[in-house]
């Protein structure tokens, strides 16, 4: 199963079984986060290069924490201090980092395809932490874990994704993942952000520009961040977006009564989402954050630790506790 997976570059190429394996492996790590002592020795002596060529707070901290809790060391490259600013090519920067012998790379980069570009050039596993508008696979996996926890299964839901779909790697990864589990996916936003080509990306994907239509019978509503930097291209006033597309309490009533609301963050309250919804009982936003840690620990453990698939789970196996 995961033996064939030497990198995690995207969801598109994963099988249903691989996704379920990752989620199952994440499960004990989820519970582990409640331990008073949050440190394992599973990756002791390993080091993970966190190469963030695009600024990121939550994903970077989540990966760094996941690595630390597995006992790995991290080496960190951030956009602000990046040698790219000094004109070095990505290829050379990566070769330099690789010479420090990390056991794996976590990559965030503004160019679609950058994680694959790096995977072709290094001999250790690469985890994509978001590449341009292409994919953000760990986000889709943590969303899937949250859905499975809250709803009992991943199979067959009506999923509505709201917002700036065209620029969203989160939307793409979620479309690939959920469609592998028979979801009916509705994409909704201002027309120029929801091109028709998305309907060809996976079975049972449809688009609409009407939020009321999109929310009807939804089991899960994913609200994307409105990237304010994109509002200017072409110019769209934030007030226009709020008027037509903000997820309000009234609009959420159109969805199934037990509909789950997810948001990948960072969230702009009052723009894409009404604070009452963000903090309401249907919101899974904070679970998403905790689940992100669990999913990333499972991935780091298996990809970088190259653990045998049937090995005892490190969060259950007491001999793995750190001393």
């Amino acid at each position, binding site marked *: 199963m995961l033996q064939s997976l030497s990198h995690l570059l995207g969801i*598109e190429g994963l099988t249903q079984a691989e996704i379920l394996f990752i989620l199952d492996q994440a499960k004990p790590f989820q519970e582990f986060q409640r331990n008073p002592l949050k440190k394992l020795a599973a990756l002791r002596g390993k080091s993970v290069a966190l190469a963030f060529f695009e600024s990121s707070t939550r994903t970077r901290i989540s990966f760094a924490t996941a690595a630390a809790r597995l006992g790995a060391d991290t080496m960190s490259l951030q956009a602000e201090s990046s040698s790219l600013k000094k004109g070095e*090519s*990505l*290829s050379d920067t990566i070769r330099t980092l690789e010479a420090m012998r990390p056991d794996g790379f976590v990559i965030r*980069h503004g*160019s*679609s*395809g*950058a994680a*694959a*570009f790096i995977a072709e050039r290094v001999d250790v596993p690469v985890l994509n932490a978001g*590449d*341009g*508008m*292409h*994919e953000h696979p760990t986000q889709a996996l943590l969303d899937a874990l949250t859905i499975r926890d809250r709803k009992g299964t991943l199979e067959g839901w009506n999923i509505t994704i709201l917002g700036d779909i*065209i620029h969203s*790697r989160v939307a*793409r990864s979620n479309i690939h993942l959920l469609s592998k589990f028979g979801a009916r996916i509705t994409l909704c936003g201002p027309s120029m952000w929801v*091109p028709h*080509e*998305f309907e*060809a*990306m996976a079975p049972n994907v449809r688009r609409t520009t009407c939020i009321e239509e999109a929310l009807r019978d939804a089991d899960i509503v994913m609200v994307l961040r409105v990237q304010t930097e994109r509002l200017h291209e072409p110019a769209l006033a934030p007030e226009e977006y709020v008027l037509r597309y903000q997820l309000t309490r009234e609009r959420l009533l159109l969805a199934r009564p037990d509909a789950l609301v997810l948001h990948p963050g960072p969230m702009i309250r009052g723009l894409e989402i009404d604070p009452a919804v963000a903090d309401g009982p249907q919101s899974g936003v904070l679970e998403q954050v905790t689940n992100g840690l669990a999913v990333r620990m499972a991935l780091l453990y298996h990809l970088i630790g190259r653990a045998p698939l049937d090995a005892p789970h490190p969060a259950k196996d007491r001999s793995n506790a750190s001393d």
Partner: protein
Amino acid sequence: MLLIKHGRVLDPASNTESALDVLLDGERISKVGENLSAPGAEILDASGLFVAPGFIDLHCHLREPGGELSETIETGTKSAARGGFTAVCCMPNTHPVNDRASVTRGIVERAAATASVRVWPIGAASIGSKGEALAEIAAMKDAGIVAVSDDGKPIATARLMRQVMEYCDGLGLPVIDHCEDASLFAGGAMREGATSIRLGVPGIPSQTESICVGRDVEVASITRARLHIAHMSTRASLAYVRAAKKRGLRVTCEVTPHHFTLTDADVIYDTRFKMNPPLASRSDRDALVEGLADGSVDAIATDHAPHHPASKDVEFDRAPFGIVGFETALALGLDLVHSGALPLMRLVELFTTGPARVLGMERKIASGEPADLTIFSTEHQWIFRASDSPSKSRNSPFDGRTLRGAAMATIVAGKIAFRR
């Protein structure tokens, strides 16, 4: 003297296909006939091969002056000779831009000293190709340019296009336009469509090209002057050209081998598949093949655009546009012949009399004509390896591809410029 024996002559100008020998004397063809003999002449055995007029490439970038890290006139024309081209037209987007006679003369002199095939420079239409004032077109013509273009960019405005066309009409030069609407292009890196959406790569809608082709055809209807559309890649552009021809306008166009071979679905973040115009949809590709077959397309041109390896070893959206193309063009064209899409004579026309007509020249195999010939096999199996190319660049999407058919000898002014 050089005697080419046992080959099959393919001459589109006279629609001849027959077993004929060709005798070259100095820089000219002296005799074409059956079973020729010439005591003392060097013999080139062309058994099993076709003998065609020398191939002309209307569109390439030799990068000299200014881009010698990627290509020079010497390395580029060596690669051209391997592809069977006996003459190549080099675009003016060098550093400095070929927008005045001194630069043109520099290119002509470097070609005389180092080139393996004929180099026919194309001059800029506007100074610095900036789309403002007209370049020194008449002086460049005296120095040797065969056409004008601001290639790499479109001729900026309809008004400038009108002036350039009218002026060039008086000088007997065609105007070649790289058709693109800059506002629609807007930072795109591949053709907009299902693949660009899936990959998350900023898209370039196909209309970016056809809007500008439509504009140019309309301007041509004012000027009635010669207009040539460079590297045309879409069905809609072809429709404009077809309609223009029907209206009796002097509008011609060229298509590249990569646009009639590949589609946007072949793009997977590999910068060797990134060029401008980008690879188009299957429907557009199919339309181009129809256009090649029915005569609406006038020439196959390579748009050979070398970029040194480091400049292409970057993220897809940061990579420069362009691929090398001389050495694979003929075999990719022959794929269309092998698949039945094109008759062989038509393919040869697209490499010879077609581009010649765009430039207002003739191309034929007859006594007294220049001794430029391309001798090729339709069957020779080989693997194209970019690392074997004399070009300084390696940016080919066809690297490693098994090809059927190749130039076996390229003869320029009576001399063998390349022999496989």
